[in-house]
């Protein structure tokens, strides 16, 4: 008896699900799934754009060539290296989102306006002073901070979120340029601060040359010569990872987490308050588990993005240098596919990337499913 019942119910659910899914599934099959299947087929052929070559099935030849291609392994190493910074960026976004999910408005409007006025006056005085004294850049930077603070007091977290998020989509190239300045080995802020620190601790070590150095933190590994390994140290890869972290914490992930945390029902927090939990406790035991589905999403998208990204960074900031240490697989796919016109080979690279990401996703999925079932 129970089986019959569940069979009918399942079928009804199936058609209901199809009803909801129909539109999306059709578009998906035509515009996404079809091309994907085609590219899989192409990775087993000798597809190039040359009219002189007939399309031929070559089986695993592309993949075999890939595995013995030293460039592929080098760029794969670079790409995986950059992904090591993802957990830090995700945690950073979560912390920021937790801070900014509330209104952050002080209770009384008059108090807000008064504090904002004080800030603006102090700001104008300081910056005016600096301007007259000729320190125009410093005046501008401090002015921005003062205005940011005043806006934050008046409008609360709305202004903070805007100030954090807008640069992430608006000023890509500007951010990269500013970070190049920061990482300048002689005049940049990074080495200035590091120099002071090292002097304070009395360590006499050479300052890292960041974007011009082929060193990396994993430089002690026995890498083949084609990997341009300059030894242990802080080099271009670390510089780009730091930059990626900085650009990433205020970006899409932060907004996602804000939306996610905003959906957590208030009664969970109220119950925790009654139990006497502090804010750290509430964060760790309520917020983090409740946003687990979003964390899964962010982790997967970050992995996908990490394996497919780095294109813009490489091109503008370092041109894939120094000595190719910041070139990623995405760039290799582009050159092989559209410059050397070996599209079958490029498809094969893409599918190897796919296998890696898919494997990581499956691991994440199984782990996440178990956690979610335990939580509910």
């Amino acid at each position, binding site marked *: 008896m129970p089986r019959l019942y569940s069979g009918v119910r399942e079928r009804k659910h199936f058609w209901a699900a199809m009803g909801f899914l129909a539109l999306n599934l059709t578009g998906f099959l035509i515009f996404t799934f079809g091309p994907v299947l085609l590219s899989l087929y192409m990775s087993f052929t*000798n597809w190039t*754009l*040359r*009219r*002189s*070559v007939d399309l031929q099935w070559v089986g695993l*030849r592309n993949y075999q060539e890939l595995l013995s291609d030293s*460039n592929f392994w080098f760029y794969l190493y670079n790409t995986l290296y950059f992904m090591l910074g993802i957990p830090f960026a995700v945690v950073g976004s979560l912390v920021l989102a937790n801070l900014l999910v509330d209104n952050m408005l002080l209770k009384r409007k008059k108090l807000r306006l008064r504090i904002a006025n004080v800030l603006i006056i102090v700001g104008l005085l300081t910056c005016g002073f600096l301007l007259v004294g000729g320190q125009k850049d410093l005046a501008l930077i401090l002015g921005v901070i003062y205005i940011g603070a005043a806006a934050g007091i008046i409008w609360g977290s709305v202004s903070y979120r805007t100030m954090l998020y807008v640069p992430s989509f608006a000023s890509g*190239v500007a951010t990269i*340029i500013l970070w*190049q*300045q920061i990482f*300048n*080995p*002689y*005049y940049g802020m990074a080495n200035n601060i590091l120099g002071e620190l090292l002097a304070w601790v009395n360590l006499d070590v050479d300052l890292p*040359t960041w*974007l*011009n150095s*082929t060193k990396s933190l994993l430089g002690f590994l026995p890498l083949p*010569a*084609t990997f*341009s390994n300059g030894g242990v140290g802080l080099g271009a890869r670390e510089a780009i990872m730091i930059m990626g972290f900085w650009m990433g914490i205020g970006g899409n992930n932060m907004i996602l987490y804000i939306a996610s945390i905003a959906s957590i029902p208030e009664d969970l927090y109220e119950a925790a308050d009654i139990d006497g939990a502090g804010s750290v406790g509430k964060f760790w035991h309520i917020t983090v588990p409740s946003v687990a589905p979003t964390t899964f999403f962010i982790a997967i998208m970050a992995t996908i993005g990490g394996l497919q990204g780095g294109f813009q960074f490489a091109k503008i900031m370092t041109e*894939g*240098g*120094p*000595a*190719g240490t910041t070139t990623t697989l995405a760039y290799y796919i582009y*050159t092989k596919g*559209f*410059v*050397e*016109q070996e599209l079958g080979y490029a498809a094969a690279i893409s599918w190897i990337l796919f296998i890696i990401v898919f494997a990581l996703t499956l691991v994440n999925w199984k782990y996440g499913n178990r956690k979610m079932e335990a939580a509910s």
Partner: protein
Amino acid sequence: MKQFFIGALVLLGILSLVAQMLVPAPPEPGKTQLVWTTDPNPQRDPQLEWFNKRYADCNLRIDPDNSDSMKVIVQSCAGMGPDIIGHVGWWSIQNYHEAGILMDVTDHAEAMGFGLDTLAESVRPLTTLKVLNDAGQIEDRMFAYPCNVFHTYLIYNKNLFDARGIDYPPEDLTWQQYMDLAKQLTVKDEVRGLPIIFGAAGVKVDALIFQHGAEFLNEEGTRCTMDSEAFLDALVFYHKLFYGLEAEPTPLQKAGVSSQGGWGGGYNNWFGEGKIGMYWGARWMLISFRRFITEQRKERDIWLQENPGADPNDAPEVLRMGACQIPRFADGPRYTPTGARCAGINVASPNREQALNFLQYLASEKYSEMINVGADSKPGNIAYNKLEQFINPEWPGEEEVHEASLRAIPFGRARRRSMLINISAVNTEFSQIKSRLEATPDMTREMIVAELKRGADRVNLAIARNIKRNPKIRTMYEALLKTGAEPIVYDLEEVR
């Protein structure tokens, strides 16, 4: 929720109606519509205007592109490519030809007056490719025509020479003189020992390679010659220019000049600011330099106004340019890198015949005049490459640059191509080696040898694979062997 969705849909519906109404009427019937895919540089607009005036039965317009070949390739694969393809460069011409996109214009060129005889000899190889014709012979066919051409020569900053009391470089500059001048002109910061003014910058490795008598491929294109002794010597010298002789800024030294970074075009701006003594440049840089000069003049005028009666020698300087040829070895040949941005015709275009008018236009006087006045490098047609046509009366003081530009033409040379392999593969291998050279201060001769051997080996393997897997390339290889070419390095039996 529901109201929001419905409201949004209504609003979008209204906007779409507005958009439909704003669609312009189809262009005049009776005129052939021609589409030219290139970068939407504002300088193109007068060029388009004149074309449409001259060929009244055509209406040419630009489809913007981002100077990659991706758009043209994707569109042409599906048969929706443009009529005229811009950005056909010395390597992309092979790509487009192999993808079957470019039209063979040799016969039309002769008839319509833009044949190879209108191009300088050093420029011709940039527009032709070797093809196997029906009779089984290899011949050169023309596939594109230059929109503009450049040759590299040396531009120097006269102010810096005068300030140090050094004589200007002679027209027939040798490498030894070049290095001495670079050393004399370099000014170093006392505190850190880093250069704040570079004696010379912008050296082109191709010039060194050609001047040593080396090449990337052998004459018939069957072997990669990057591992030859001459090539090795050229690269060792190139490396020494950076790290031994200090005649070229290293990446670290570049960072030491505090205004490093920025939107690209670093060396151009530094030269304009007077931070580089001798610069490997070409005529298209005049566009940027003219901007600098205008602003420097403004600054100078403002300064003179604010300080009346002061010594004019203290006023901020305006850039004064001189030019000479790039250096050569004392008893060696002089070769300088050359390039051209060409336009080609899409073989699948239904408007092929009218599109050919565009190539004729590129060789015409009016077009060449616009290129000359705007200093947009040099026009393709050699007949309009004359000093009096280069000189723009609004910009005096550029005569030496124009003269050097003309004198550099016979020395131009570009990398050899091969029928058996896509030249981009060779380029990629070499740029990896080059970037490693520039980033590694302590690169020994043995290390360079190892790199070159590896690179040459990969290219040779790729050539062998192409021949093995592609019957058409195999036919070309056999035709080459018949003309007495050197056989390839790899044994075809051993290659998959």
